[in-house]
């Protein structure tokens, strides 16, 4: 099962969705087609914005680092941050903003605690490069990696409740030693 399908399972039909860092709009299109969930995407990259328009997805070209002041309190059922949190400079204000404008947030990220990443650092002595983390350290949109434990610590600090957690390896759920064996984490959280 793809991440898109996993996230879609959590979205109740007809829900209002805001997808931050929406890329070419694949997730929003999928949510519309399978859950009749109307939504908006926020994206900064010119080429991706044009792809969204081609895909007939509502897209707003804005910088997430500027906050979500365009959106009113509680105007969405879900605010999604899919594999984008590691590209953000300031996670705390964004997480607060997400749960101001949305009832719940869905956050996914590549798990930096995955055993292969750990191995590359501890044994090979270099920054991890993998399918999930395909970038060289000097040429990457990623600025703040985290592990499952790190993310849950941040949630605790901000008073955010974890409602559901899904940890995956090759698209399959990981049910034990998640922070070591999972390469991708998806959380559903609320205030």
């Amino acid at each position, binding site marked *: 099962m793809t991440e898109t399908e996993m996230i879609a399972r959590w979205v109740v039909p007809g829900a*209002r969705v805001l997808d931050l860092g929406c890329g070419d709009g694949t997730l929003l299109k999928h949510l519309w087609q399978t859950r009749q969930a*109307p939504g*908006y995407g926020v994206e900064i990259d*010119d*080429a991706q*914005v*044009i792809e*969204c*328009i*081609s895909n*007939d*997805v*509502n*897209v*707003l*070209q*804005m910088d997430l680092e500027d906050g979500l002041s*365009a*959106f*009113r309190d509680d*105007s969405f059922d879900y605010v999604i941050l899919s594999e984008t949190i590691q590209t953000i400079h300031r996670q705390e204000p964004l997480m607060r903003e997400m749960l101001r404008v949305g009832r719940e947030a869905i956050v996914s990220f590549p798990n930096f605690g995955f055993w292969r990443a750990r191995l590359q650092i501890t044994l090979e002595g270099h920054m991890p490069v993998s399918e999930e983390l395909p970038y060289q350290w000097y040429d990457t949109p990623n600025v703040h990696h985290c592990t499952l434990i790190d993310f849950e610590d941040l949630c605790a600090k901000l008073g955010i409740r974890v409602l559901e957690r899904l940890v995956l390896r090759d698209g399959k759920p990981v049910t034990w030693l998640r922070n070591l064996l999972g390469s991708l984490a998806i959380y559903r959280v609320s205030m």
Partner: protein
Amino acid sequence: MIVVPQKALFDQPLALKGGATLPAFEIAYETYGELNAARSNAVLVCHALNASHHVAGTYADDPNNIGWWDNMVGPGKPLDTNRFFVVGNNYIGSCFGSTGPTSTNPATGKPWGADFPLVTVEDWVAAQARLADYLGIERFAAAIGGSLGAMQALQWTLSFPERVRHAIVIAATPRLTAQNIAFNEVARQAIMTDPDFHGGHYYEQGVVPRRGLRIARMIGHITYLSDDAMMEKFGRVLRGKIAPGYDFDVDFEIESYLRHQGDKFADYFDANTYLRITKALDYYDPAAEFGGDIAAAMARAKANFLIISFASDWRFAPSRSREIVRALLDNRRVLSYVENDAPHGHDAFLLDDPRYFAALRAYFGNIEL
């Protein structure tokens, strides 16, 4: 693409927002492409301050007269006339063919001149709706415009929510700022204090307030370009000199450019029209009757929107477009917003930045016919 300008006469009076009534009026227009059998592929193009109904193509007897948005509109272009029936129109009060101050006042047999009433964006849209009736267009697939043209596209969604499916609103503002109005007032003062203005009755004196028009245009041009674009284009380069002249002749290229633009403008533009258009800009404020609440004003709109702004535009900055975006989000409209970082300033909406054009091409491609 060879095109032919046309005129439509409307003999039913048009009550204007300012209280006056136009007894009858003409609209100059051009069309490109074919109206389909379902009459579902019509796109209205609205022009800004100094443009006209001549949006695209050339004239058989004037091949160098290319439409002002020819890069955007035509076969295979972002607004593709192989697919859409595009209508260019000249708003009333202008000086390019539609009824305006230079037209004959039926009551006197002389040009309207200073007696031509003040017209508003709402009046233009009401007149355009008559043109749509005349052309057999019940509902436009889209209305599109930049700057003052964008205000018309926006107003279409408010005046006639059922008659426009998409609004493409480029380099726009929901209302002018005090600074915007200030620039307009300086331009108007330049015209009205020109000794050749004669209170607007200069036609009968056989003169044109050229000095005023030139200065008005020079001020306008400064606001259309970004500081960076102006520096990039002109720098501090001297005009035909190797050293400053220490006199008041042209020293810098930018001075020469502004004088040239001013002269050109004074040759073809009507001062009474300029005064009225800047007033229409100043007055436009759809939120005024909703206590300034733009979201409440936009509640009537039913169209889908594409809003485009340019980061280097300081005349109508992206923050102004974002006000419209926020109002539409509050109303949960179908909406996309593009913030383009082309460096050219307000005039970027007339240029062919590839990302800007790709966004428009993609948007038009998804409009169902």
